[in-house]
């Protein structure tokens, strides 16, 4: 059986990948600390409960990233001849479902609070023998849960692009969702303190629109990736320009009269086929092997490219 080559990131990207892993570990411990603190002070404020739930869900991208990162580079074997790259796409699906769920949860929750006109009660807490309004403590905890998230998210974005890591990209958006919900909850608690019971739910509703949008875009892309859509870039979800380069390389060969290619995404890497109509059959195997090598050297993301010589191009093959 022909197995796929074993995959590691190119040497120059390994430090970036290790940095991403480190960031994800930091994210997990940080999120665990914020969920623990929030649980202690949440009282019966709806805004705090939402922010807490959101924090719990937002662990998904980091955990799925770390699990996937232990699996994806395993060598292909008899049972998995294409290797384990798809685990990245599965992790991406999990993360985007979580992000979408956070947004949806926020909408349902705030709409129901508004409809039922629930007035949240926030009483006092005794800290070191002093009675303090619990709202102040909640705000302090929420600030702790929002400020580091801003930086974590910002640090993950460039790494996600370099590593072609859509899961990491979703996690960066999750960090954004984190700090935005935390700020919305602060808004809510200050609002409650001002006697505006509706402030909390209204802020959450506004922010949830943004989170749902991010969640939906990523969820759609994760599903499309699993359905072998033509490869898309990590950030803008546009057709990867690399496809054009492969096509141009083949089209530029003197021995090829006509050609067509297709590529699909398997986690970080691309696999694909090219159908070529050769000018003549002279030294065909040699030409094909050379072209394959050139294409696979175009970019580390092209993991395996197969060239199939044909008399006529198959009709309806993709661009």
């Amino acid at each position: 059986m022909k197995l796929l080559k074993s995959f590691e990131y190119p040497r120059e990207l390994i430090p970036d990948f290790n940095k991403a892993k480190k960031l994800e570990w930091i994210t997990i411990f940080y999120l665990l600390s914020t969920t623990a603190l929030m649980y202690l002070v949440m009282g019966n404020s709806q805004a705090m409960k939402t922010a807490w739930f959101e924090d719990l869900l937002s662990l998904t991208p980091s955990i799925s990233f770390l699990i996937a990162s232990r699996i994806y580079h395993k060598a292909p074997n008899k049972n998995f001849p294409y290797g384990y790259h798809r685990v990245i796409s599965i992790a991406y699906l999990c993360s985007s479902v979580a992000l979408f769920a956070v947004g949806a949860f926020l909408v349902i929750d705030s709409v129901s609070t508004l409809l039922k006109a629930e007035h949240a009660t926030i009483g006092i807490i005794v800290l070191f023998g002093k009675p303090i309004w619990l709202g102040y403590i909640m705000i302090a905890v929420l600030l702790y849960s929002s400020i580091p998230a801003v930086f974590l998210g910002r640090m993950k974005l460039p790494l996600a692009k370099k590593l072609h890591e859509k899961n990491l990209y979703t996690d960066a958006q999750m960090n954004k969702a984190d700090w935005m919900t935390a700020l919305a909850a602060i808004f809510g608690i200050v609002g409650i303190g001002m006697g505006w019971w509706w402030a909390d739910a209204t802020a959450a509703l506004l922010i949830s629109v943004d989170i749902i949008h991010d969640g939906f875009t990523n969820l759609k892309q994760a599903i499309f990736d699993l359905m072998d859509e033509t490869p898309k870039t990590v950030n803008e979800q546009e057709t990867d320009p690399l496809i054009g380069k492969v096509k141009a390389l083949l089209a530029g060969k003197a021995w090829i009269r006509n050609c067509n290619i297709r590529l699909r995404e398997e986690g970080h890497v691309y696999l694909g086929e090219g159908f070529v109509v050769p000018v003549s059959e002279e030294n065909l195997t040699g030409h094909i092997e050379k072209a394959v090598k050139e294409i696979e050297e175009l970019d580390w993301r092209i993991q395996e490219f197969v060239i199939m010589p044909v008399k006529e191009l198959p009709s309806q093959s993709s661009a």
Partner: protein
Amino acid sequence: MKYVFLFLLPAVWVLQACNGNFPKDPEKTLAKIQNDTLRVGYSENPPWIVKTAQEPAGLEADLVKAFAATIPTTIKWENDTEQNLLEKLEKDELHLVVAGITHDNPWKKQVSFTRPYAKQGKKKHVMAVIHGENAFIKKLEEFLYQQEAEIKKQIKP
């Protein structure tokens, strides 16, 4: 830039907090009580609250009377079953219900409880309050906290 509003409100709040009247009541309960009466529901549960020919007696009755004196206001007592009183409280028809309620009472989802002001065995005792009137609730909880040492002396462990 879309989220600038999130930073504006905390700024307003800092001004408010400096002013000293924070948090506020959405329905101005504390202010209304001063001009009117404090509506308290009670359901007999000795020794916490005991029905007498006149005003109710017991530890909780004493606490409520002392609290009313700090506002100051007069109390309008209303006697009924715990169920009926809590239903009224849920509809904001009462300000406060005392019935020897403990923190694990299943009504805690529908009405708001104060933080526990006394502990007997494993049971933590609370009062049920109108929800969301945070200035009023804060005042009551602060009052109960100040009385904690005194209450402890009166409770048999």
